[in-house]
């Protein structure tokens, strides 16, 4: 039977764990608010951009030879999968959910006989996928989002993807990230970004004038759109991460509380049992005299 001291030590250790997890929960909650605001603030731009592209795409419809990034290379042999995860753990199933979807996607593509390349954004994804798909990882960005996510960072990834595409290193690019629904639910999501899935042309009724020319605008707009989509998903990912972390830490804090309760009960029982035992010993000793 554990001694009283053992109990005291364990209770103290669980208590300090609880302090840490509840502090982390608090931090995650405040960061979540900021991340959520950022994600919501980025939405109008992404939406307007999509609309503009939709209008442009409408005018390109039926014409052969639009820019490659929109029309595609005409093949889908080589797939690039961009896996976005967090840099840190302690966030429940957040990273593992994304990685599971990534694995599944990669397997499916491989079963179909496609060549797969992986680009990791976030350290956890790289560390995990390195075990199974070491040869597939072409590059990884792991120094991102230390404090806040800046647009320049998304641009770096976009530049890398554009370079690879221009060099003909892949045909289709899909990104996997976690879409933020609420602090409690985050859904891992797949989204194709290259070639850009041409949205349904809303009102092709109004033919646009282009300055300088439609091709030049598309050449500017498409890489820009890529960066925006990446930026947006990075923000969604950050918000999801803090949401998941908050929930996980909340659970941990509650579990620690339960555990302290249980241990305290056992501690008191043991203490009483020992007192009773000592009393019996004294009384029976006195009777024997």
């Amino acid at each position, binding site marked *: 039977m554990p001694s009283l001291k053992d109990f005291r030590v364990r209770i103290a250790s669980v208590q300090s764990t609880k302090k840490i997890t509840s502090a982390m929960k608090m931090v995650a909650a405040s960061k979540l608010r900021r991340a959520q605001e950022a994600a919501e603030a*980025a939405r109008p731009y992404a939406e307007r951009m999509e*609309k*503009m592209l939709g*209008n*442009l795409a409408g005018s390109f419809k039926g014409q052969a030879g639009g820019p490659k990034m929109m029309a595609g290379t005409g093949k889908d042999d080589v797939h690039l999968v961009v896996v976005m995860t967090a840099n840190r753990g302690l966030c429940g199933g957040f990273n593992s959910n994304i990685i599971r979807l990534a694995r599944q996607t990669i397997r499916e593509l491989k079963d179909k006989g496609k060549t797969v390349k992986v680009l990791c954004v976030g350290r956890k994804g790289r560390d995990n996928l390195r075990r199974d798909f070491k040869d597939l990882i072409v590059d990884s960005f792991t120094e991102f989002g230390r404090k806040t996510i800046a647009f320049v960072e998304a641009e770096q990834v976009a530049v890398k993807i554009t370079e690879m595409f221009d060099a003909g290193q892949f045909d289709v690019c899909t990104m996997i990230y976690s879409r933020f629904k609420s602090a409690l639910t985050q859904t891992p999501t797949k989204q194709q970004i290259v070639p850009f899935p041409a949205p349904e042309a809303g009102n092709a009724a109004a033919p646009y004038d*282009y*300055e*300088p020319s439609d091709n030049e605008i598309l050449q500017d*707009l498409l890489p820009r759109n890529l960066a925006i989509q990446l930026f947006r998903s990075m923000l969604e990912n950050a918000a999801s991460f803090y949401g998941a972390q908050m929930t996980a830490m909340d659970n941990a804090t509650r579990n620690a509380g339960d555990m302290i309760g249980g241990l305290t009960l056992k501690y008191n029982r043991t203490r009483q049992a020992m007192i009773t035992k000592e009393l019996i010993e004294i009384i029976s000793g006195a009777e024997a005299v």
Partner: protein
Amino acid sequence: MADTLQLELVSPERLLLSEPVEMVTVPGTDGYFGVLPKHAPVISTLRPGLIEVYKDGSVTQQYFVAGGFAEVNASGVTVLVDEALPVAEISKSKADERRAAAQEQLDKAATDEDKRKAGLALRIAEEMAAVASRAN
């Protein structure tokens, strides 16, 4: 009051402006152009310059933009910018700082891509300085 059109000014970080205006001038790549209500639909790229918002016959707001896209259609003007600053917030000294940083970048640039980027940053900074000296 005269006819108005809906202006939306959006940067990646946030929605800066969404309101009816009388006229707006936009720095298109091929030159500044003004947009009045019932303007023909246009999509244009932007160069660094000044966006001016007109209400009741005079300029009410000025924003410095680093570049982006503008779309004019029947429902109004949508301007997507890379970076936008109210003119009141830019100053000659800040612009000069940026110009120095961009110049340094240009000197260090090794690849064509780097050079192009630094050149662009330099142009933005120069335009910003010009705007700042005109405003103050």
